[in-house]
């Protein structure tokens, strides 16, 4: 029964190692915090994209509302003195709540659609939502919210800056670990098998007695919640401002897709591997050949899609089906 959770050990170790490198080697923390972000992004998106095979092209919208959730809480509650930490926690809750709400709305609409239609619908949701915010001047419209001063007032400028520079990243790591854990729990439960079945053959899955809609929505909401939290910490707390065009930038969705695909969709270890490979290559490409990263990266992605559709972990996993290494490490 215990061994159920062994596959979590490598995940845990990976993040601990990254954390130690970041703390230990001077000047490394920033690179690590970037990697944390990408890994967490992949980990969260994997729960939906990887496990259901549905391509949500509007995923970044959930990070967006998450960012707004934190921004709104802090700027609205900043006048209350002496509850700093509580306000931050409240912010996380609002972020999660808003992300859940949006995911429910989107799920109710878009999850009736399949394949390309679903992808297009979700793009529509993301863009539409952004233009609604700008057009109807919701949450200050295009001017966004700059809440540094509020954050200072809430927890004091010293704490605020250590929040921006250190704790926000720690939260990201925690979110990543949580997402990974939930992924594992799902994989080892009926949810995981139901999702696998509907990913492979939705109609057959129905006939087998699987309530596909239910399981799709479970995965969708879970994934969206983590996205909301991620937005709240990696964007709102790390940069105390939010401008609509920045938080609904579709390229973040694409990055997330690449990470998941690179590491291996629907695998536990995939997002970390994908996040590391993507983050590092992106970082060093931009150091070596600033401005030409994409020119190199785009064809590489195409080649990977064609040659290794299962992603790095996916391939290893396939090779090790039923062997002990798979049961404990590659999952």
């Amino acid at each position, binding site marked *: 029964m215990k061994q159920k959770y062994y596959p979590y050990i490598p995940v845990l170790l990976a993040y601990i190692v990254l954390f130690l490198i970041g703390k230990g080697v001077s000047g490394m923390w920033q690179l690590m915090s970037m990697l944390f972000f990408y890994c967490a992004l992949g980990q969260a998106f994997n729960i939906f994209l990887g496990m259901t095979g549905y391509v949500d092209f509007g995923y970044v919208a959930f990070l967006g509302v998450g960012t707004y959730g934190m921004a709104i809480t802090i700027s609205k509650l900043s006048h209350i003195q002496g509850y700093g930490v509580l306000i931050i926690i409240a912010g996380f809750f609002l972020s999660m709540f808003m992300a859940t709400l949006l995911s429910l709305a989107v799920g109710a609409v878009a999850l009736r659609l399949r394949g390309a239609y679903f992808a297009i619908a979700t793009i529509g949701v993301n863009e539409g939502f952004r233009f609604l915010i700008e057009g109807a001047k919701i949450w200050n419209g295009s001017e966004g919210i700059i809440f540094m001063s509020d954050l200072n007032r809430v927890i004091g400028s010293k704490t605020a800056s250590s929040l921006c520079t250190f704790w926000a990243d720690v939260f990201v790591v925690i979110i990543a670990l949580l997402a990974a854990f939930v992924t594992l729990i799902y994989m080892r439960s009926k949810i995981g098998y139901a999702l*696998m079945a509907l990913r492979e*053959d939705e109609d057959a899955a129905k006939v087998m007695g699987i309530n596909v809609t239910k399981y799709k929505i479970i995965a969708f909401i879970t994934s969206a919640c983590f996205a909301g939290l991620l937005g709240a910490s990696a964007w709102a707390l790390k940069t105390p401002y939010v401008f609509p065009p920045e938080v609904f930038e579709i390229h973040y969705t694409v990055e997330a897709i690449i990470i998941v695909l690179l590491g291996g969709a629907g695998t536990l270890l995939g997002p970390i591997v994908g996040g590391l490979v993507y983050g590092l290559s992106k970082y060093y490409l931009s150091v070596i050949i600033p401005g030409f990263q994409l020119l190199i990266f785009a064809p590489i992605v195409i080649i990977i899609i064609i040659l290794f559709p299962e992603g790095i972990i996916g391939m290893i996993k396939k090779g090790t089906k039923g062997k002990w290494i798979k049961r404990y490490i590659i999952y």
Partner: protein
Amino acid sequence: MHLLELIGVTKRFGGLVAINKIDMKVNEGEFLGVVGPNGSGKTTLFNLINGVYFPDEGKILFNGKDITRLAPYRRAPLGIGRTFQIPRPFLSATVLENVAVGAMFGRMGSDLNIDGAFEIADQVINRLNFQNLRDKIASNLTPIEKKMMEIARALAMKPLLLLMDEAMAGMHPGSINEMVSFLKQVAVEEKIAVVSMVEHIMRAVVEMAERVVVLHQGSIIVDAPTKDALTDPKVIEVYLGKASEE
């Protein structure tokens, strides 16, 4: 009371009628063969029984419960299992996992945990004795192996009614007989009613089925014990009509 009962069921697609006012009964544990040439509406009939389509007219009762408009995923737990004409395995999963999924969401599903499901899967695989395939990934199976796996998956659902769409097509006679005898054995033990659908009247069906329903252009032309059915002039006509094509 009958296990399955279709009352005046009709299904249309656009203009044309696929299933025309069909009345049909299946008793617990019986072996029923549904025979009919291509396009006679067999697959549509199955899709109506397990809820892929809803009928335009008529009622479908299962164990006396009206399931006419019940979603397919709610029918499997009642005990309706199915195999497809072209097997539809979950390709990325191992054979064991495929079969286990059957158990997980089948009739016993609600009171089975993961491990329980895998035990049942193991049992079924052992009975069909293809342990050698147990940990193979479904995408690497041969078509026949896929069919076998699908039957195992369906049996793991512990169905009361098993709908088999061209289950033995493409198998060589040896394994067909094996299969048939195996199915009979299981069916008897677990009181499964098997509805096996075939395009042509073949020994397997004859041996297996106690009763045959012959479909033609969406309606039942004959519903009789196997021996009488096979000698029925209407049937012969239908199949002579088809003979030329073969």
